[in-house]
């Protein structure tokens, strides 16, 4: 960012005026309210969650919450489902979004319209996405209706039956991808736009075709963008909540829905916090994994 002339704090303080000192403090005074607010309502409670998770209701330090967490009936299922969804949604989304970003960048007629339609889910809540896709996946929904009208099935398929894991997963993956692929596309597009056009031309004149320009130039240069996008998206995917709730009720328990059940249903804040801490731990691990595996060699983007 370009900034106005940097105030020379040292020189000013020699001259000593109180006004000068106030001027040096100005940026801090401007920043402080916002940063304190964020710290109080975001960072502090994030730390607080650890406190709640490692304490009994009466405030004694304990690991008991985590012991009951592991014994929770849906614990194993919710961990497995969370990872299952993650493992499908993230690769599918990034692959398709990469394609969409490239498409959106090519000079197609009607590009503005495409971009508009492809990005409107950015403003859709996960709850709305779940409800929208509910109309498609219920047993008497539009998917079964279409399949039946085409005589591909005899009886409606119970996609959302509690014992139909593939069906449940399919529904959640479809809805969650539909909702959040726009975000991934926009992130990738911003990365692609930051790549100078003449790099592509240089590769082209050196004999690289469209595909090799994509794999040898675009993708490597997108690595930092993909890294940030993956971290952002994986963190949010760990928290998948309302889509699951709207589509499956309690049929497909995930970590976030279990948190909500313990907090909202059972009023057991210790268990809820334990689930939340586990979530934070897992998404931190994922973030670190991305940071190490997708590292850019020193010197590529800075001296």
């Amino acid at each position: 960012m370009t900034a106005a002339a940097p105030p020379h704090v040292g020189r000013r303080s020699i001259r000593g005026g109180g006004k000068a000192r106030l001027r040096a403090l100005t940026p801090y005074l401007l920043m402080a309210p916002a940063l304190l607010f964020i710290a109080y309502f975001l960072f502090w409670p994030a730390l607080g969650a650890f406190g709640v998770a490692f304490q009994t209701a009466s405030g004694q330090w304990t690991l008991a919450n985590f012991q009951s967490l592991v014994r929770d009936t849906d614990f194993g299922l919710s961990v497995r489902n969370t990872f299952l969804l993650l493992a499908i949604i993230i690769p599918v989304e990034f692959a398709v979004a990469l394609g969409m970003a490239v498409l959106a960048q090519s000079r197609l007629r009607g590009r503005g319209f495409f971009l508009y339609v492809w990005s409107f889910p950015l403003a859709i809540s996960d709850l709305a996405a779940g409800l929208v896709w509910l109309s498609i996946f219920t047993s008497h929904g539009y998917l079964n209706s279409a399949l039946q009208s085409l005589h591909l099935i005899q009886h409606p398929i119970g996609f959302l039956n509690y014992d139909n894991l593939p069906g449940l997963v399919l529904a959640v993956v479809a809805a969650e991808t539909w909702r959040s692929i726009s975000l991934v596309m926009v992130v990738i597009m911003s990365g692609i736009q930051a790549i100078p056009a003449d790099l592509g031309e240089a590769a082209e004149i050196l004999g690289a075709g469209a595909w090799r320009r994509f794999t040898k130039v675009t993708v490597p240069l997108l690595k930092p963008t993909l890294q940030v996008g993956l971290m952002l998206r994986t963190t949010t995917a760990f928290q998948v909540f309302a889509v699951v709730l709207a589509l499956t009720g309690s049929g497909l328990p995930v970590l976030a829905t279990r948190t909500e059940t313990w907090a909202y249903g059972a009023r057991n804040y210790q268990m809820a916090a334990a689930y939340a801490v586990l979530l934070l731990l897992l998404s931190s691990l994922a973030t670190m994994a991305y940071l190490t595996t997708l590292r850019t060699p020193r010197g590529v983007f800075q001296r």
Partner: protein
Amino acid sequence: MSTAVATRAAAVPGRRVEPGRLLLYGCAVLVTLFMLTPVYLIALAAFSPPQAIFDYPHPLVPVGLSLENIQFFLTYQGIGPALLRSLAVGALTVVISLALGCPAGYALARYWFSGKDLAQLMLVNVRAIPMVIISIPLLVTFLEWNLYDTVASVALVHAAITLPLTILISASVFLRVPSELEEAAMSLGTSRVGAVLRVVLPNSVPGLATAALFAFVTSWNEVFVAVILTLRGPTLPAALVQQLAASPLAFRFAGGLCLTIPAFVFIFFMRPYLFNAFGVGGK
């Protein structure tokens, strides 16, 4: 404007790769169908006569237009107040977020100060904090403060969630107002505060309006915190979550449509700023 590397293939004028372009259009249309079909279907479901829910197979084209489902949803017990509460939470979120965010954004845009990088790093990384984890301790806090189950409590958290983006957007908006304009105003006799009020703000209205819109949409869509922090006074999404298990399908479809339609309006106005808000490319 810079163009992507890979797109040169697509950018090659017509006569060279006609079939390739056709393929591109095919893909684009396919993606568009994937995006729009669910919206069409939820609208179809929401505007069908109530008894049509039980028809099977459903016709995939409209057979009759009925507002009954929508009416049922909007007049359902608690939905009206929840809608008003959502608007109130959103408005309050915007006010707090802008009031705290604009000064911070101005500081980022106009000053160099030690710790600036750290502050920016913090703002970017706030996005990585799971909402799930903060909601439980906040619930405890608000219980202590007697703010549990109020519009204010939800708005405070939503403001905190939206603040980083508000700060970053407002900083980029202020950066676009040349500091020479401000200096010119000051050289003509106004103070810095006067220059900000008379010169910077009037030139920043559209950008700040977008920041406000982003804050409102985030609040409007936020489910988890709202569910945890409310009980008898939920926001619209929270009310829907509360009713999910017990409500008929028609109710849920109408609710889904009502939550979806505003997105088209929001994105229409947010389009020019999408890359600012969600992009990670530029610094």
